[in-house]
């Protein structure tokens, strides 16, 4: 648990997505905890820019060597940018989940949703609540 990164300035969901809010734009990815659980990521399937998103919708799927996992949009809005580098270097998600491994940028449509997201502290409580094997 000690070495799982949970940057303090970000927002989180209990489905392991993070959110960086800058003005009316949100950058979204999956957390360090999630990428550790999935292990080597080989492919990220993302939708196209322009798509309208509702909070809680499936945003895309992440393929690891032995598992496939959905991930969800933490916030409603319009998808404005997709990280095209992930096509060639999906392992950026493992190496820099909060940096180069970002997945999409969304133009926020409902700012009141942000306050309902988890803080870094709340998120840490969620994952330490999970049984460790």
């Amino acid at each position: 648990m000690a070495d799982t990164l949970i940057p303090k300035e970000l927002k989180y969901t209990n489905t392991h997505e993070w959110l960086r809010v800058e003005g009316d734009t949100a950058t979204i990815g999956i957390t360090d905890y999630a990428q550790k659980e999935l292990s080597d990521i080989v492919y990220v399937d993302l939708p196209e820019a322009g798509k309208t998103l509702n909070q809680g919708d499936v945003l895309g799927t992440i393929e690891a060597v032995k598992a496939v996992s959905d991930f969800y949009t933490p916030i409603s809005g319009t998808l404005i940018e997709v990280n095209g580098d992930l096509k060639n270097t999906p392992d950026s998600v493992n190496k820099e989940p909060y940096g180069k491994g970002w997945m999409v940028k969304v133009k926020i449509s409902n700012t009141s949703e942000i306050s309902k997201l988890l803080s870094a502290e709340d998120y840490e409580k969620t994952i330490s609540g999970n049984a460790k094997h």
Partner: protein
Amino acid sequence: MYTPHTPEDKKLMLEKIGVSSFEELISVIPDKLRFKGKLDLPEPMSELEVMKHCDEIAGKNSNQKEFISFLGGGVYDHYIPAVINHILLRSEFYTAYTPYQAEVSQGTLQAIYEYQSLICELYGMDVSNAGMYDGASAFAEACHIARSITKKNKIIIADTIHPYYREVINTYTHGLNIPIIDCGSELDNEGRVGLEKFEQAIDNDTAAVLVQHPNFFGILEPVRELAEIAHKHSALFIVCADPISLGLLNPPGSYGADIAVGEGQSLGISASNGGPLLGILTCRKDYIRMLPGRLVGKTVDVEGKTGYVLVLQTREQHIRRDKATSNICTNEALCALAATVYLSYMGKQGTKDVAQDSYAKSHYLAHEISKINGFSLAFKHPFFKEFVVKTKLEPNYIIAELMKQKIFAGIDMVRFDNNWKNLMLISATENRTKQELDKFVKLLKELR
């Protein structure tokens, strides 16, 4: 062969588990639930009696070794080179239908890799999987792949595809509310699709356009134009092509197919009363992650030696579960092996020769039959290795009479559609000699 346990075997096993008798193991079953009597089964037979019994049953079938066959409609009498059985019947291939620890079975994986490579060359496509159950279900699965890729729903299907393939597509799309439009021809006119009907039917919700080329009637379709129509509306173009036809015709990859499927039975697999068959499924490189079934890849081990592995397994249902594009869970690997041996043995030239021979013989036959009083060709468009004949006499009468002469004359088309009366589907492959063709024509002439 059945090898039962001897009394000594049983004694050893019971001793090992510390039980005095078999009865002791089932002693918990109450007496009133026990069946007391004899099971209503025939008496057991010795190996000699079983063999005689099976031979007798099998002997009731007429087969393509004893009969001259002009049957087609998806399953054909092409010649099967002796070398195929020589490889197929090796117990290493014959008994292990699938490798459960795949990477330990390098020979099996290599054979599948070669199969995939040969099929890609033949169909002019980027990727082939390890095979599907048959051409019909491969065609149906292609619809789902197209829907996954385009995220659209509507499917447009040429009405000149094999009617059974059409039924299988129904089965695979049952309950999913997918708009399916049958498009194209009027039987009495053309026997191949009219492009205007496709132009009218296609829209921006169309996921795919499906056509069989050559089609069910043996006739060539305007595939280049259909590809254009499909792509203009961002729909995928899916083609079902007979593999032998590709010894003569341009391959699907060259005229715009996004997904190409086919029935592999013509590649060294016996007709066997309709199965087992081999589904061929190929696609463009971009769509590889949507391809169902197994994919074998080539790589190197830690010592740098070539090795074969199953790749992209996250496509498959044992990992992707309900998100997989297919629930395919068994395989036709032995049939794929037959196709691999056939293609590598025949080679490019051999495949060309078989195609040209089949083309020539079916055209000779069609020409000769059309000269007989009471027989005419139903359609005038170019065909490959089968054709439809309009008959004055009832097809079932013709078929019955020719059976007496040990000839399978063709298929009575009324079994597919009540409106297809007095029509027969007849095929001639490289396996027919001129004498056989002439004998057939002579017998047809003599029918009253």
